[in-house]
């Protein structure tokens, strides 16, 4: 999907909640199982390798594994690489890993034309008038002060899911904290699937099936939601 405004940063991640052994998830394990190349595994940038947490970057994919959480992240333009990696890891090798929750998340930072535009965008989502006199003071500061307040975070949730799965879609909208000079906006879309109660989960077959079935649709939906915000950013 073509975006209304070209993002500065556009990443997608897969998050799994279950029971994991972080010591397994090291670059060379992925390399030896042909999930990344051996060369990429050898060149991996290690952050932490510990019995309770494993974090590294290899082949432009960021890995983070804790006892209860597995996450891989890459640029959205190469999104299918992490899908292949998760399906390869848990569909071919670690098939008995109990996994009960799947998250397909997308993070975007996109620039606004200028600071007043970003403020107007924030005021569209969180109008100041209902805040009475306090809101009016914030509004006045926006117009006169270089350093001023305004909307700092808004979370919108859609539940139930349209596809019949348990779970929800949650969107987090904030000023970008990493691209301050660009007056950028940060949006995170969390597409959350609750696949089975943790105590009844035996393996990860359902996660693999859901990921296979819902992946493209989820990325398209996040693109659609983000584009709606971008459209507003262009016209506000």
């Amino acid at each position: 999907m073509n975006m209304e405004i070209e993002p500065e940063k556009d990443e997608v991640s897969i998050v799994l909640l279950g029971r994991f052994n972080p010591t397994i998830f090291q670059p060379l394990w992925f390399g030896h199982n042909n999930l990344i190349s051996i060369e990429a595994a050898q060149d991996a940038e290690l952050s932490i390798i510990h019995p309770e947490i494993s974090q590294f970057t290899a082949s432009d994919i960021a890995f983070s594994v804790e006892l209860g959480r597995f996450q891989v992240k890459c640029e959205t333009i190469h999104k299918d690489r992490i899908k292949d990696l998760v399906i390869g890891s848990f569909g071919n090798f670690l098939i008995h890993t109990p996994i009960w929750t799947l998250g397909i998340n997308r993070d975007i930072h996109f620039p606004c034309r200028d600071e007043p535009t970003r403020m107007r965008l924030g005021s569209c989502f969180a109008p100041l008038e209902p805040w009475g006199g306090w809101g009016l003071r914030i509004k006045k500061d926006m117009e006169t002060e270089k350093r001023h307040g305004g909307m700092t975070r808004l979370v919108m949730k859609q539940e139930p899911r349209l596809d019949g799965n348990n779970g929800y879609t949650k969107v987090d909208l904030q000023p970008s904290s990493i691209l301050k000079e660009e007056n950028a906006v940060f949006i995170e879309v969390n597409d959350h699937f609750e696949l089975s109660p943790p105590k009844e989960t035996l393996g990860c077959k359902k996660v693999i099936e859901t990921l296979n079935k819902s992946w493209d649709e989820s990325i398209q939906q996040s693109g659609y939601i983000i584009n709606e915000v971008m459209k507003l950013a262009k016209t506000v």
Partner: protein
Amino acid sequence: MDFDALQNSSDQISFDIDSDIQQLIELDQRDNLTLSEKQDEGSGSLVNLEKNVVRAPALTILKGRIISSHQDRFRAIRNWEGVVTAVCDDTFFASVKLVNDKNTLPKDELEIDKDNIDVGDRNLLKVGSVFYLTLGYRKRNGSQVVKETRLVFRRLPQWSGADIAQAEEDTDKLWIKLQSQKNGNTAEGQS
């Protein structure tokens, strides 16, 4: 294979990319000037003759693309998804389509130098392999703009015995359903 058409297609793509990159470089150069003058709280006019500097907005919008002052980052200009169609000694041929553009039909044919493939991915090069080809530019050291090509092969998961059995079962079910529909239509036509 029509090599002339292939060559023309590649030339066209290269030309478009060069043109895009040139535009981006020009915009970023203007952007840099803005950055260097950021401390100056001037009038905001485009040209300040007294100080002999050029001013431009911190963000420049051109044809819907916004170029920012953020530095040392790869910016993709074109991204294709390709399938290898033939492998030669030093190059390979691939059928490619722009990612996110479902209207891009028919697909372009490209000849790509094998040197573009990471050493670790060369064992994946065979007919039918799927890859991403991304062209863009990276700005290094604050000002140096480097054109960059990224070629990344997908590592598709292996089909397990259970997957194949499931696919066969699904196919059988679909076949039975189609047959029963066909028989139903025939009976309806006869009555």
